[in-house]
């Protein structure tokens, strides 16, 4: 899903280097990004750490906006992915540090702590794999609207409202919006199922 028009406008302004643009983009996106990272981190996550990493993602984006490619993803999606990745990395480091402390204080807990670190590392790798697979799946759609819808489907986005904006249906009556969203989602899901079958085959 590529950037929406409002995101693209904000991104262009940040790219121009205007100092106020940074504050504008942070103010506009901060809470969406925090919510997204918290959602990705799941229930029982370290909420303070997740919010901190969401903030880091935004601050670093505004410093180096050239790293973001508006053709490849929506700005919010990109920032949530970066924030979540930072969160997972920080969590992993924290657990590694804890494992080292266990090893100094209580050798019997070393194995358990190391297993915990390994689990987090495996989850990290799985996340990266999932992210890459998602990008590959989306790349098989030609229509930008289908790409956007596929990204939402792959994120397990429920309901019809989130699809309205990305499909450009906001000017239609609600019933037509629902019908069109249902039609596009069905088509995209079928195609994704076929593509997943392809990617699940040994390459």
């Amino acid at each position, binding site marked *: 899903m590529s950037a929406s028009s409002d995101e693209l406008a904000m991104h262009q302004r940040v790219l121009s280097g*205007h100092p106020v643009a940074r*504050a504008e983009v942070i103010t506009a996106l901060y809470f969406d990004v925090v919510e997204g990272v918290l959602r990705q981190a799941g229930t029982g996550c370290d909420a303070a750490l997740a919010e901190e990493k969401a903030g880091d993602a935004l601050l670093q984006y505004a410093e180096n906006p050239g790293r973001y490619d508006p053709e490849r993803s929506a700005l919010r999606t990109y920032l949530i992915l970066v924030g979540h990745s930072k969160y997972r990395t920080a969590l992993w480091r924290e657990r590694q540090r804890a494992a080292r402390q266990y090893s100094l204080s209580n050798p019997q807990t070393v194995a358990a702590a190391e297993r915990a670190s390994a689990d987090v590392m495996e989850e990290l790798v799985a996340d990266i794999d999932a992210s890459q697979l998602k990008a590959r799946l989306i790349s098989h759609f030609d229509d930008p609207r289908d790409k956007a819808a596929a990204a939402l489907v792959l994120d397990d986005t429920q309901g019809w409202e989130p699809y309205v904006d990305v499909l450009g249906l906001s000017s239609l009556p609600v019933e037509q919006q629902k019908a069109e969203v249902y039609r596009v989602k069905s088509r995209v899901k079928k195609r994704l199922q076929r593509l997943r079958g392809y990617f699940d085959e040994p390459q």
Partner: protein
Amino acid sequence: MNPNNSDRTDLSRIARLARAHPTYVAHALAQYQQDEALDDAALAVYLQCEDSMLVRLALCGLPRPAPQFADDVQEIATYAGANPMRLMRLLRTVEARRALQEGIEPRQQTREHDLPFVAARDREDGDSGARKASPDTQQDD
């Protein structure tokens, strides 16, 4: 913590994070507060803005080098409802102190986030000799 339910207008946490980033105004504000032992309320009084607007100010980037420097300071100040001359003085004071601490002449610095202050000083030197005193001795407004 759920930002949805708690306080959707509270950007103070990310403003605090920005203090660690030298390319944000937050970094300069934090440095000035530390040097002058100012709390947020006192800083707001100095900059002649609302306390709540310090967050907006903190999240701005530093002004770009000349020829945009003066306009950028003006726009940042307008965005945060602050006095542009006070803001310019604060930024230049922080930069001058940092240069002194590092034993570096500001003119010789090349890092991008240092350039605006040098550019501003060069510009003012060129405009008039009336403002050549150190930042702390300048008149504002």
